[in-house]
């Protein structure tokens, strides 16, 4: 009499183990890829710099040495006190050769929270204050029509 061994039904735990091994391996690889993709660029970024433009960053041709200019430049309020920071690219684009933003410029703190705006002719206007509530500084205009060219 021969006896045939018939494989009985596997226990639920065994099935899970058999299928989960390759699946978990794939999941781990995917997770590693995702972590690498999202964290490496963040790690390679240099932290933002905040401060004043060093005197020697201004070049003779009127441009600036952008490698010496912080990412965010101190912005002064109308009393001359630091109000926050403006993005260097907004006021000195293209190493100081380009045209700056023509209008209100956001002013932020070191956590990049908006604290107000630098408004042409008005200077710093705190967040929540309508621009028109700050009186403009007096501006003089010179026109010389002396020539007949």
């Amino acid at each position: 009499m021969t006896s045939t061994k018939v494989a009985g039904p596997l226990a639920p735990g065994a099935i899970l183990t058999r299928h989960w091994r390759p699946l978990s391996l794939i999941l781990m690889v995917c997770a590693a890829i995702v972590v690498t993709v999202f964290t490496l660029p963040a790690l390679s970024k240099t932290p933002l710099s905040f401060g004043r433009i060093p005197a020697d960053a201004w070049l003779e041709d009127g441009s600036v040495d952008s490698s010496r200019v912080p990412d965010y430049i101190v912005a002064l309020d109308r009393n001359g006190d630091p109000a926050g920071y403006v993005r260097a690219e907004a006021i000195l684009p293209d190493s100081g050769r380009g045209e700056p933003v023509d209008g209100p410029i956001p002013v932020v703190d070191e956590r990049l929270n908006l604290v107000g705006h630098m408004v042409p002719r008005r200077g710093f206007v705190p967040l929540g204050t309508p621009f028109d509530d700050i009186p403009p500084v007096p501006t003089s205009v010179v026109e010389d029509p002396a020539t007949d060219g």
Partner: protein
Amino acid sequence: MRYRMQGAWVVAIALIIMALAATAAYATATSGRQNLGQHPSNGFLLCGEAVIRDVADNVAYSMTVFPLNSCWNSGANSQSGWLGARADGFREGAYCSTTGYAYNSGQTWLFGVGSVLCSNPVGLQAFHTKSYHRAWDVTTSQYVYMGTATSPNQSY
């Protein structure tokens, strides 16, 4: 006699100090006239100048001259609205504010805009002006950015 000599020295030193203080307090620094190329509408040479003048007045000048070989040639008039200038103020490497662009209201060869953009607290502070210049382009009916000039630092 000895006291008289000492007195003379004190007066001389005081005068020198006063002269130096006056120089610091009342002085102008300018970028000089910078060649920004030909005006797109009239072909004259457009020049820009950034000035910081006492006390801490940030000024930007736009001007058209002819012939084209030097910004120091004779002024050549541009039509109303064809010259734009803007002055930005800096104090000790910090940004104060800007005048925003202003444009000539009448025919002129020289147009300037200025404002005291930075406060001037007690003690010597280094100020300077960065100017920006625009010109009206009749073919595109819009303003064209022509360039910038930067004054040296001036302390007040």
